[in-house]
């Protein structure tokens, strides 16, 4: 078991981070807004944590970086990302559908080029030597797991209260929502901001998990990856993005491990090693085609909900 955890500690943590990034993209999607800006806020959060931990919070006792500092960084990152999101959101959320998606991609690209050009972000090399609050990667679960559970609980609760219903109403029919008094801009910006806060916090933690941070973290590719988490996992319930994030992060690594199984014919082992991304792509295609609703659909929970609900 110890062996397992030391081998897969980083992977498990990155799976959980991915699940949260999926959730972050799911939040605006609750109100029907496909925003890919999350990758930009993720990058921003990472830079904030990397800069704070290497340049500001440099005095602490002991070998390990205090966990409390990490939490402070996450709060700062969340606030900064949330504030930026309000500005970007007010500008961009007038756009709909693909236009919004592309405008947010433009935002991500602009941030990336900016981070390559300004000094504080370290250009292409980025910021390295981000201090470690834990002795082994798996211990990041102390922060990541509660964070995932809390954000899941948050979204679960959100879907069942006034604000969440308003978001879903906007997704289902924006005009009808407006005509019963729901302010769509306010709610879209709110969801966008919540999404940015989560992405910013995840970025802050990721900078520690990765030991380093650079401009390659928040890119178009990353944004599309997050989208795949949601669409493969399912976009109609918060469990979808979580499962999608976990599964799609695990998949290439699981394929890597398959290559290591003893007794495989050499050509197959070689294919699994070097061509595993071919399989990965193929599985994404097949997943999309066979599960147009995503792996997890609300219908899967409805049985339980109907049976348990006393008001029925």
């Amino acid at each position, binding site marked *: 078991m110890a062996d397992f955890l030391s081998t897969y500690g980083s992977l498990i943590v990155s799976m959980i981070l991915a699940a949260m990034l999926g959730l972050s993209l799911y939040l605006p999607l609750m109100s029907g807004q496909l925003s890919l800006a999350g990758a930009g806020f993720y990058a921003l959060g990472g830079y904030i944590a990397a800069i704070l931990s290497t340049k500001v919070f440099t005095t602490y006792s002991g070998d390990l970086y205090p966990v409390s500092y990490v939490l402070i960084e996450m709060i700062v990152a969340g606030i900064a990302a949330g504030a930026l999101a309000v500005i970007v959101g007010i500008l961009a959320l007038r756009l709909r559908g693909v236009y919004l998606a592309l405008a947010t991609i433009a935002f991500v690209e602009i941030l990336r080029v900016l981070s390559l050009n300004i000094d504080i972000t370290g250009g292409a090399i980025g910021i390295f030597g981000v201090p470690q609050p834990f002795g082994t990667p798996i211990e990041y679960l102390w922060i990541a797991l509660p964070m995932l559970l809390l954000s899941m609980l*948050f979204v679960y*609760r*959100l879907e069942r*209260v*006034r*604000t*969440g*219903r*308003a978001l*879903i*109403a906007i*997704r*289902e*029919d924006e*005009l*009808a*929502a*407006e*005509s*019963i*008094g*729901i*302010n*769509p801009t306010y709610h879209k910006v*709110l969801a966008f901001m*919540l999404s940015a806060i989560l992405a910013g916090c995840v970025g802050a933690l990721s900078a520690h998990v990765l030991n380093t941070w650079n401009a390659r973290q928040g890119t178009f590719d990353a944004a599309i990856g997050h989208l795949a988490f949601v669409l493969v996992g399912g976009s*109609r319930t918060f469990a979808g993005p979580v499962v999608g994030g976990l599964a799609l992060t695990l998949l290439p690594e699981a394929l890597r491990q398959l290559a290591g199984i003893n007794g495989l014919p050499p050509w197959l082992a070689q294919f699994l090693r070097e061509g595993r991304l071919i399989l990965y792509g193929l599985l994404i295609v097949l997943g999309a085609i066979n599960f147009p609703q995503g792996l997890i659909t*609300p219908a899967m929970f409805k049985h339980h*909900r*109907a049976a348990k*609900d006393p*008001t*029925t």
Partner: protein
Amino acid sequence: MTDAPILSASPILSASSVTHAFGGLIAVDGVSISVQRGEIFGLIGPNGAGKTTLFNIMTGLIAPNRGKLFFEGRETTRLPPYRIAERGIGRTFQNIRLFGELSVLENVMTGRHTRTHSNVLSGVLGLPAARAEERATRQQAMQLIDRIGLTDRAHVRAGSLPYGDQRRLEIVRALALEPRLLLLDEPAAGMNTREKQALSDFIRQVRNQYHLTIVIIEHHMPLVMGLCDRIAVMNFGQLIAIGVPAAVQRNPAVIEAYLGSRKFVDR
């Protein structure tokens, strides 16, 4: 057979010379209407006469090119739809617009958005005030659902309801925001005679119970004639007649409009 309308001196809704054009097509052309508090006001006319556009202008979905709108004496001309809803105008749509993935109950609870205030944090954290509000909202919504006999289907996806139930649900969702003015866009479309009668009774009931003013677009003449206190007739974007049902029915311009367009189908 109609209840006596509770008329007051000042109109609850008034439109003055409202005009709107889509591209070159003038959909609403200088329409001025006043709706009195408490009345059931019919809006009829051939397809494409501009009735729904007028509704959309009244509820802020479309901004008029010219003209002004007043609700309860305050101007609403350029307000966004949600502000107008907050002021107390509820509406339904010609082609039903429910939140299909939400349950019947959730649809009606969402209708109470402007009457509730808990914010995202108090809601998610389940603070006592938010919980109490949520409970009250649920109760009020269930009462409304009771009225249309959907109690046992409260947890069904709204999109999966039969057509007639969806129409009724949409009315109830609009009622949930406690409007003082309710705009119904062809609420009886697709219903059979018996259902239409029941709907007619239901509309009258809610008007009396909640002291509502109702404006209704409807093609089914017996329903309109029986239900409405006053009727306005539109054709090619213009108001061609207004008055009590009997007078409107005899108006030659109205007869001409319906015969001319050959769209006067008694559905």
